[in-house]
């Protein structure tokens, strides 16, 4: 039987290759992410050997993100004097050191942080090491991360301008290039100064942000940590090297877990789509070979043996696809690595390894998909009676669609329940609502897929009516309808991909529209000044523009994180007297104007999850320690401000670095926005990292981020759409072979090659149109449902991107045309005589 299977595969080489390819695509994705994760694990191992102080003391009770807490430098000596300590080094490390490129704008700061830090001479504890040149020493010197230097066009010996939170823009001489391990964080830029310079430009003289402590021989890290903890202030974190390592590993793993799941999901979708294709291929091959199989039965093969040949073929395809997929997976993981590398992180000692686990995963996924989708055709093959061998053209009788249609209807009806529940729960339990919507989408999708055979006839009839008048069109639509199951399976692959793309597209455009809506309805300011990546900036910016001519209001806000019950929320300090002139804060109870020292408004969502109301006092952990806020009212979390709103003096009393998050500017009536912007740009010449934005800029900025995200999703979903088109190629070329005689006949009675090609092309178009129609409709329903469910999360406006959906439809049809090229060419080239002579 193995021989029969191999022969058959060899006879249908091309189909076989297409099938292998489609499965391999999905497998490559799954294997690629797996290989990448594996190599990350290698990186973790390398991390263990990376230099690290025995105990690290960090300023700040919580991770303040871009807000950096500090410790007095005098503490370094005290720590060094501890009985268990061999020595201690003070370190300054903070965000906001923007390295400027040749054009005067900060390099590489769109997402990840721009960090500045002090140089640590002791290589056994430093997270940064020199690659070339020497360490920075003195106020005018800096060492840069290799990628940062590259981006800014700087090199050892050249000068570079850096915008720092305290010192503003200054010119430095580059003394060397450095590299950092994974613990240094991924992406972003890094500038390294000597300690006094770092203090001067990043924090303030006499402060450090961390202390690296080395233990005396014989003193354990934990002992030392205990001694240090007893000494340092409360709002300080003390970590042993082991803890720090675990921390880093966990942080990276969490970061990549999301990334991995994301990629894995697309691999699984592609595999799911390819099951349709394999199912179709096997169904058609079995139908074509029914006489051959019947002959095998007639000469004594058992039913089980017939099933086995088909399954064996599937298994061979599965194994080959796994092998090719693994190779592709290596490529995918290299690509991932390159992407991570481009983000500025080197993965130390992380060779790409093909582990047994990865191989098993690839094989398992591949075999599962191929064998599962060949099961039904195998059963059908075994049901072919031996007598079929004697019958001329043993056409399989069309099986009734009743059962599958009933099933589809039941599933679609069943999907209504979770969909409704999701909508009802949207306001109260967003997470549950999203899950229910996901369930509804899955049920609905499978339901529609099951309904597709029944839908194929009327839908294709409708499309077919467009070119009913031409015999070629009539034949094409008749062919497409001839085997509704096959047509449905082919179109379904496209349906899945397009439904997902459409849903994402609806969600994306709704998100954009919602953001624009929020900007319109909440930002009353004419101009907003923000730091790169919305990071805080020096108050000198405000000082430079506070007396801006033409402005009626110039005010700044500061946002710091507070940790309550382990969850972080933002606290924004505002000037209650004028803030409402530049921000529309949708207050529910209380008022912004009545805010005083120590009091705050809380957003309704947070109030609910913390279970607090006006009159309560909330205690939370701020960067420099504990603080209290008295709640005097609530507001809707609709605009750019979330969490708590309080006064600037309240924020300062809690004690943070003086850094502003945004400066809002409203114009006097009649002032020329262009003139004011001109003036702003002039005044902010010393702050190249500050962005002057009007409302249109804000929208463009936010939308740009959406576009990047959705672009990635489209690209990944495109994978499954490609699989779907390969499916159309496969189905059509099989169907051309199946109809050799029919095509020969029409050629004999005068159909030209071109007409035959048109016939096949039209059929492909019909398949694509069916898949597109169903995909778009389904995706539209999913998208609208998702938007409704996510409305409380901020996607409050529904916007259906008709233009984009039209583009999808056109692209899908073009894809259908492209998919027809090869089968049509083959059909046209088919010699008339052999087609007729074939019996």
């Amino acid at each position: 039987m193995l021989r029969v299977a191999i022969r058959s595969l060899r006879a249908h080489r091309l189909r076989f290759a297409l099938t292998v390819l489609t499965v391999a695509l999905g497998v490559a994705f799954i294997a690629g992410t797996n290989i990448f994760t594996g190599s990350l694990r290698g990186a973790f191992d390398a991390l263990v050997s990376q230099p690290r102080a025995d105990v690290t003391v960090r300023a700040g009770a919580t991770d303040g993100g871009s807000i950096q807490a500090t410790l007095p430098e005098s503490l370094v000596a005290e720590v060094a004097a501890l009985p268990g300590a061999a020595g201690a080094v003070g370190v300054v490390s903070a965000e906001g050191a923007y390295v400027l490129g040749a054009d005067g704008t900060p390099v590489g700061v769109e997402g990840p942080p721009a960090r500045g830090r002090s140089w640590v001479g002791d290589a056994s504890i430093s997270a940064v090491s020199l690659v070339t040149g020497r360490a920075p020493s003195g106020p005018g010197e800096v060492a840069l991360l290799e990628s940062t230097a590259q981006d800014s066009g700087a090199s050892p010996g050249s000068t570079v301008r850096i915008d720092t939170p305290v010192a503003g823009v200054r010119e430095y001489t580059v003394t060397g290039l450095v590299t950092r391990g994974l613990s240094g964080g991924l992406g972003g830029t890094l500038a390294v100064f000597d300690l006094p310079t770092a203090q001067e430009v990043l924090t303030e003289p006499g402060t450090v942000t961390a202390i690296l402590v080395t233990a005396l021989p014989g003193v354990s890290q934990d002992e030392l940590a205990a001694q240090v903890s007893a000494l340092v202030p409360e709002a300080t974190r003390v970590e042993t090297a082991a803890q720090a390592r675990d921390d880093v590993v966990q942080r990276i793993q969490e970061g990549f877990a999301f990334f991995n799941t994301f990629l894995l999901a697309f691999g699984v979708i592609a595999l799911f789509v390819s099951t349709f294709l394999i199912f179709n291929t096997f169904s058609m091959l079995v139908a074509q070979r029914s006489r051959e199989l019947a002959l095998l039965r007639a000469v004594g093969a058992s039913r089980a043996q017939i099933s086995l040949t088909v399954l064996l073929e599937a298994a061979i395809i599965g194994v080959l696809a796994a092998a090719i997929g693994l190779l592709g997976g290596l490529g995918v993981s290299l690509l991932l690595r390159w992407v991570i590398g481009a983000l500025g992180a080197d993965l130390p000692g992380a060779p790409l390894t093909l582990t047994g686990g990865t191989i098993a995963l690839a094989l398992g996924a591949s075999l599962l998909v191929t064998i599962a989708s060949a099961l039904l055709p195998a059963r059908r093959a075994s049901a072919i009676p031996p007598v079929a061998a004697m019958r001329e053209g043993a056409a399989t009788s069309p099986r009734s669609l009743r059962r599958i249609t009933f099933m589809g209807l039941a599933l679609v009806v069943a999907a209504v329940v979770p969909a409704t529940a999701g909508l009802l729960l949207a306001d109260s339990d967003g997470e549950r609502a999203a899950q229910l919507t996901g369930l509804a989408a899955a049920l609905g999708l499978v339901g529609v897929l099951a309904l597709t055979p029944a839908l194929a006839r009327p839908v294709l009839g409708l499309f077919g009516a467009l070119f009913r008048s031409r015999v070629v069109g009539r034949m094409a639509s008749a062919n497409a309808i001839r085997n509704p199951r096959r047509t449905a399976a082919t179109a379904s692959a496209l349906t899945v991909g397009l439904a997902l793309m459409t849903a994402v597209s609806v969600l994306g455009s709704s998100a954009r529209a919602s953001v624009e809506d929020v900007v319109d309805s909440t930002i009353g300011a004419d101009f907003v000044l923000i730091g790169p990546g919305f990071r805080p900036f020096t108050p000198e910016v405000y000082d430079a523009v506070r007396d801006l001519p033409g402005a009626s209001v110039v005010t700044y806000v500061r946002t710091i994180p507070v940790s309550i019950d382990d969850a972080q929320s933002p606290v924004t300090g505002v000037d209650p007297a004028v803030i409402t002139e530049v921000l529309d804060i949708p207050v529910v109870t209380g008022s912004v104007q009545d805010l005083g020292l120590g009091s705050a408004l809380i957003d309704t969502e947070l109030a609910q999850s913390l279970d607090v109301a006006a009159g309560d006092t909330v205690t939370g952990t701020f960067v420099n320690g504990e603080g209290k806020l008295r709640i005097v009212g609530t507001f809707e979390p609709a605009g750019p401000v979330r969490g708590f709103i309080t006064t600037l003096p309240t924020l300062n009393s809690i004690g943070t670095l003086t850094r502003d998050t945004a400066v809002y500017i409203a114009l006097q009536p009649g002032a020329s926005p262009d003139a004011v912007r001109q003036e702003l740009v002039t005044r902010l010449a010393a702050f190249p990292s500050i962005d002057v934005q009007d409302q249109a800029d804000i929208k463009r900025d936010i939308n740009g981020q959406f576009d990047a995200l959705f672009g990635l999703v489209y690209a990944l979903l495109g994978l499954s759409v490609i699989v779907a088109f390969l499916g159309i190629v496969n189905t059509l070329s099989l169907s051309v072979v199946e109809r050799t005689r029919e095509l020969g006949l029409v050629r004999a009675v005068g159909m030209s090659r071109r007409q035959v090609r048109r016939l096949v092309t039209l059929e492909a178009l019909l398949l694509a149109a069916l898949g597109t129609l169903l995909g778009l409709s389904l995706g539209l329903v999913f998208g609208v449902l998702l938007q409704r469910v996510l409305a409380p999360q901020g996607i409050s406006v529904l916007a259906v991107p008709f233009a984009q959906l039209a583009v999808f439809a056109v692209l899908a049809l073009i894809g259908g045309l492209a998919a027809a090229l090869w089968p049509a060419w083959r059909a046209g080239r088919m010699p008339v005589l052999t087609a007729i002579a074939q019996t």
Partner: protein
Amino acid sequence: MHDAAPPAARARALTKIYGEGDTRVVALDAVDLDIEPGTFTAIMGPSGSGKSTLMHCLAGLDSSTSGDVYIGDVLITGLSDRALTRVRRDSVGFVFQSFNLVPTLTARENITLPLDIAGAPVDEEWLATVIDAVGLADRLDHRPSELSGGQQQRVACARALASKPAIVFADEPTGNLDSQSGAEVLGLLRRSVDEFDQTIVMVTHDAGAASHADRVIFLADGHVVGQLERPTAEEILARIGELAAPRGAR
């Protein structure tokens, strides 16, 4: 009028060779043949004698190795695929032994298929005449799978006649039919010659079928080895016997 008209199809020194070297087969060896318009010609001969090959070459379905073939006045040897297709579409009708109809089209659509392909208008009056002649007026909306073998062949005949081609070729049109259905199809072909002045060339193994023809041409080893005008089935059988005897003696 017939005398003035050129032959409906002509073969001059028509030679067809398959394969090379050891596998070389001379299927047709310098065959000369004229098919007069408005006649019913039967081609007979043992299996492998080149009947189908001759018909395919005459009909422009296959290219000859050497020699010329004319359909009407048109020299079809060496024509491009596109031009050949047009000749087949406009000047030639076909009835094959089996699988004559496109399964997805109804009987009526199958009949008008060559016209539809050409985008030519359907002559409804003529169509009604043809459909009437094949006696399938009540089956027009059926698909081939809903027709008997004989009915299918009659639909195929109607298709071949519908475009009023210069010549109709039929390769064992009754080969798969019982004698009753076969007789119906043969009667139909005969009538189309008598009543509509159609030109028909038919390949057959059956002396009874051949006896419907005006002329029977005998083929052996790629040569025309004889012909009979308006023969009876007995005469045909006798000739077949004569032709086979020397062969057997060789």
